[in-house]
């Protein structure tokens, strides 16, 4: 009798243990799905990513219902101060001690590359939105990363090619004198030359720099039709502002190579009008993007940038993939992410390649004249939708070892 009781208790216990083990093998490894948004909370990129990216992540969690595979989704965020060492240390802490499963955003290429390396060691997922270097999906590609929003190649193709096609066949570059500026200038110069244009000259401005008048005069003296601004943030804003002041925009056209909608907002249309630029997202594209962006704007005082919209879109897709895979194990989730097309407020028929590049349409836009704008944030005319396969580096040209050629 006793023996029988013991056996049945043992049996029930065993079943319970097996049930628990089974659940954890297939479900979430630690009872919670934790999202970490690592971004620039107070520096040069905090308006275009920063707190807005954290809000986008928060909205994604809420819109998904806050639960995946029956467990809660939690959010944490951190300021990497655009420093690779701080980003790497934080990522290690998040993965080792705080059960973070996925890190989103990463505002500069250097922080993105540093965190990817750690995610690769720890078998975790990264979803990069703001960092723009093509290294992320080429030489430094890893299997558990997705580069979501844009890269410098897509910007160069979008703006460079279109501007040359519209008759802007002679270029002069004002380049921020550091890795990002050089790579943006190089990528664009290649595209300009390949499209039949000519690069007449370039000047490397120290970074950061406030007064661009001297460099603008050099650009003016070159006689080039197009002045390519291979810089970002405050440098670009000051260069554009001063180009107008010096009457340069009357005879020459500026091509901003990396411009976010928050930059345009801060410049004002009077100054920025007529400029061509390439973006991965524009809030006023269709009903779906408008609806989402207005919800975002209601909680954040500005419209979403492409980076912030990218954070939302990438996390929504990630949550769906976790549900589909039935686990948060990075490779299984990545397989699920790659198996599903992306159709949301951000992308139409987007897909993820084996090098981690999310292929989606990019938009060549022109900044509206003040008279054409119907109100706040009505800034862009879409000149051309660049199909994803044209916008991004082709698999043949990619140097990523994960791509089967």
């Amino acid at each position, binding site marked *: 009798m006793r023996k029988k009781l013991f056996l049945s208790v043992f049996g029930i216990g065993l079943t319970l243990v097996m049930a628990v083990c089974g659940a954890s093998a297939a479900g979430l490894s630690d009872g919670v799905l934790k999202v970490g948004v690592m971004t620039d909370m*107070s*520096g*040069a*990129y*905090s*308006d*275009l990513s920063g707190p807005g990216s954290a809000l986008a992540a928060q909205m994604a969690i809420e819109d998904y219902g806050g639960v995946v595979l029956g467990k809660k989704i939690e959010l944490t965020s951190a300021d990497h101060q655009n420093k690779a060492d701080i980003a790497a240390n934080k990522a290690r802490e998040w993965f080792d001690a705080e059960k973070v499963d996925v890190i989103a955003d990463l505002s500069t290429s250097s922080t993105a590359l540093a965190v990817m390396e750690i995610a690769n060691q720890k078998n975790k997922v990264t979803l990069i939105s703001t960092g723009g270097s093509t290294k992320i999906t080429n030489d430094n590609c890893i299997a558990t990363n997705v580069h979501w929003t844009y890269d410098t190649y897509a910007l160069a193709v979008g703006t460079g090619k279109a501007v040359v096609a519209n008759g802007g066949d002679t270029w002069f570059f004002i380049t921020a*004198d550091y890795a990002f500026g050089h790579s943006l200038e190089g990528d664009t110069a290649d595209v300009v030359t390949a499209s039949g244009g000519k690069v007449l000259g370039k*000047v*490397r*401005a*120290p*970074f*950061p*720099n*406030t*007064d661009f*008048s*001297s*460099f603008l*005069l*050099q650009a*003016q*003296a070159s006689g080039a039709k197009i002045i390519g601004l291979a810089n970002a*943030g*405050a440098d670009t*804003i*000051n260069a554009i*502002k*001063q180009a107008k*002041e*010096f*009457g*340069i925009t009357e005879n020459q056209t500026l091509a901003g190579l990396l411009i976010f909608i*928050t*930059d345009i*907002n*801060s*410049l*004002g249309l*009077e*100054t920025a009008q007529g400029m061509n630029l390439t973006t991965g997202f524009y809030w006023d594209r269709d009903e779906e993007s408008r609806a989402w962006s207005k919800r975002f704007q209601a909680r954040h005082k500005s419209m979403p940038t492409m980076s912030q919209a990218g954070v939302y879109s990438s996390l929504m897709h990630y949550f769906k993939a976790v549900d589909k895979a039935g686990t948060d194990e990075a490779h299984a989730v990545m397989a699920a992410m790659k198996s599903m097309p992306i159709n949301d407020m951000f992308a139409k028929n987007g897909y993820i390649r084996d090098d981690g590049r999310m292929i989606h349409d990019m938009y060549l836009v022109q900044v509206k004249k003040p008279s054409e704008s119907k109100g706040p944030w009505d800034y862009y005319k879409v000149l051309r939708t660049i199909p994803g396969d044209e916008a991004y580096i082709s698999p043949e040209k990619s140097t990523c070892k994960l791509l089967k050629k």
Partner: protein
Amino acid sequence: MMIQVFGIPIQALLGQLLIGLINGSFYAILSLGLAIIFGLLNIINFAHGAQYMLGAFFAWMSLTYLGVNYWVGLILVPLAVGAFGILMERLMLRRLYHLDHLYGLLLTFGLALILEGLFRQLYGVSGLSYPIPDIFQGGVNLGFMFLPYYRAWVIVASLSVCFATWYVIERTKLGSYLRAATENPELLQAFGVNVPLMVTLTFGYGVALAGFAGVLAAPIYQVTPVMGSNLIIVVFAVVVIGGMGSILGSIITGISLGLLEGLTKVFYPEASGVVVFVIMALVLLTRPAGLFGREK
């Protein structure tokens, strides 16, 4: 045929020199403020950049929220920034006079960080645009370059203020009191001059100069919380080169370094960010008191 100097067309060179002069006038007016504060009060005012930023922001705020135009702003904003400086001196700096310079430097540096952080929190980092006043829209073609009217005004305004300041300090009775107050405050006090009041007002004036430069800068540079910290390091180098505390030295050095920087931007643009510091190192090695300073 075009005349060339070291392979650069003379037109381009003249243009760059003129731009150097514009930037030099900003350096001059900012370094003048620092030099007055250091020369007469012995305070290394690291908040000078933040006070310049405050000038630009006050100008933007008064235009946007109160509709105060540029000209009124150009007078009222420096007064407001100066008043802020006076509060700073009365409430905080005054307590540090008996200590080493370093304490004043640390206090003002801390204040600069707080001010920057505050404005970053309120307005973000992308900055705000202050329109160029209507009267200065457009510019004149000088043949070798297009000179925006506003930039010409910047040169006129800042050089006039610099000259007036130099004149008051070096050539008037009030100026002689000020100079006496630095040499021997006790003696001057014994003659019945209210020295602490003079010190406060002088500090206020130095800070007001930063505010004035901020208003001048608002229409041409984006108004951002970090605009001061980008500039202040260069301006400190200018003061060191000119000689800490030398009024005329800071004006002349400011303008010359602007010109020199302009030339660097033509011949080797990559070095334009460091040329001022190279000069500073050379001057410190050969004349530690600066070009116009006196050895103590």
